[in-house]
């Protein structure tokens, strides 16, 4: 590669990083603006202060934000756990067994993945009210499965297809028991796929807004995105902009950490499921 060409690719790389990070930098900067700075019409605060963070953690906005944070973590982790468990069995069957209906299951997963969330919300809103699941954790966990299960089945089947299953028999020939062969050989090979699937499923559950805003009404189960959507309209504090920005930064931290730690796996998981390389 010529030096000039190299320079061009480096410029391209810098542009990508700027593109990806500037809105994040902006929301962080906004969250550090004091109340007199919010309307200063510039990117940076004149003086960075933590006021907005104290407001959402200990101040007036904390009773809106903290329960929402707890709800989001709880509901998303449970939904991710259930869908990983269910799709682990399904993906094992799809990758390893030969049976009629395999195609049907994968097509159904695709169909559910393209399903418009709002179409499910209307009937659930009414049903949940009748059977008492409205504004409860299970009332969100169940519909979240419609978001996390299809992608989990696809991603995990793609991972499991690449596992050299013969290794299991090889270990048994070498004298290992079935359980030992499974535990020592298959589990280590399958674990990265399960783990990556869990991360992607968690992202999707964490991102939900439509279910969260429609099927909850109080801090008993309202997740963070829904709370953030309401912050902007709330009148309990004068100018919600700074507090909203701080809350937005807090919910972004977990996903950014996951991305930084596991970026290679996440890319493999996202593209394996959709386009097989």
């Amino acid at each position, binding site marked *: 590669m010529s030096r000039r060409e190299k320079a061009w690719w480096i410029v391209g*790389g810098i542009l*990508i*990083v700027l*593109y*990806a*990070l500037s*809105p*994040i930098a*902006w929301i962080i900067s*906004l969250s550090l603006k004091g109340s007199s700075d*919010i309307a200063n*019409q*510039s990117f940076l605060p004149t003086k960075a202060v933590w006021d907005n963070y104290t407001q959402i953690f200990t101040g007036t906005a904390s009773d809106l934000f903290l329960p929402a944070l707890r709800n989001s973590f709880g509901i998303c982790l449970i939904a991710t756990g259930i869908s990983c468990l*269910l799709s682990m*069995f*399904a993906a094992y069957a799809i990758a390893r*067994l*030969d*049976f009629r*209906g*395999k195609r049907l299951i994968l097509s*159904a997963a695709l169909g*559910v993945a*393209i*399903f*418009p969330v*709002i*179409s*499910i*919300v*209307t*009937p659930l809103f*009414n049903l949940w009210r009748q059977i008492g699941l409205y504004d409860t954790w299970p009332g969100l966990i*169940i*519909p979240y499965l*419609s978001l996390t*299960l299809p992608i989990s089945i696809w991603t995990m089947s*793609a991972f499991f297809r690449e596992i050299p299953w013969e290794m299991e028999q090889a270990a048994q020939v070498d004298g290992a028991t079935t359980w030992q062969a499974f535990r020592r050989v298959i589990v280590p090979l399958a674990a990265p796929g399960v783990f990556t699937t869990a991360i992607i499923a968690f992202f999707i559950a964490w991102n939900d*807004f*439509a279910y969260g*805003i*429609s099927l909850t009404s109080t801090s008993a189960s309202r997740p963070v995105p829904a709370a*953030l959507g309401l912050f*902007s*309209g709330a009148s309990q504090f004068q100018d919600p*902009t700074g507090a*909203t*920005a701080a809350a*937005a930064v807090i*919910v*972004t931290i977990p*996903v950014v950490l996951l*991305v930084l730690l596991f*970026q*290679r796996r996440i890319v493999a998981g996202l*593209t*394996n499921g*959709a*386009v*097989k390389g």
Partner: protein
Amino acid sequence: MTQTTLPPVPKTEPVSAPPRGISDRSRAERRLGWILAGPAFAVMLLVTAYPILQAVYYSLFHYRLTDPGNRAFIGLRNYGVILTDPLWWQSLLVTLFITVVTVAVELVLGFALALVMARALKSIRPFLRAAILIPYAVITVVSALAWKFAFGLTTGFVNSWFSWLPGVSTSTDWFGDKWTSLLVICLAEIWKTTPFISLLLLAGLAQVPEVLQEAAQVDGATWWQRMWRVTIPNMKAAIMVALLFRSLDAFRVFDSVFVMTAGANGTESVSFLAYRQTISRVEIGLGSAVSVLLFICVVLIAVGFIKGFKVDLSQARGE
């Protein structure tokens, strides 16, 4: 235009399936298969098929939660009300506008990002990959808020930064007009979802046979010619899958509209219309009918893509 692709490898058919009846072994395997995959399949159907059937049923009733006594079967009249209401057609147009604009821009931008990532030096590739995953992982509401505050009349910096542009001044109210609101909504959507498209295209780029590229280069093809005649035809499947998924996703746009304009100034999307009927106005019957129409639109787009562009989903399924 001549395109260079490798001839398709003929699929090897299994030598012979057992002629008739199935052996005990394959019967046992099928049973085990369904025992393992059944629960996931059942849960998936339960959380989607059941609600949509329920929505179809509700859509045939006049049914408002605040007035349950007057619930009555009215056949298809809800659909008549919606389809003759300009509000529905306006929201459909807005949704189609957002879908077409965002998907078109994302395809071009995503392709450019994929090209840079594919050619980037090995040492900086992990940084680029991490950077590009961040918009994908950031929740849509946060992205919408960031863009909303950036363009906001009092909170934003965009007006003061870009006041040299014609038509922009420090008092430009981006959310006071339909088209400027839609522009900002589209920008937020594009920022958030281009990374997903570019990762799919990057995987597609990796599938283009190196031999063809080299052969074309030896034959003296320019970079542009190689792009149009070799690279793009060879990654058609990846492009189509990315387009299909993103179009369906874009058509469901809800979060950004809710956060940025709440449907003001005629920026309501179909999803937002359904939400407003059901949740805000508790018109279960009417809201269900909008939901069913939304569902039908999504199915039509999917079928249109699969039939019209011959998207091979078995490619997507990795078979």
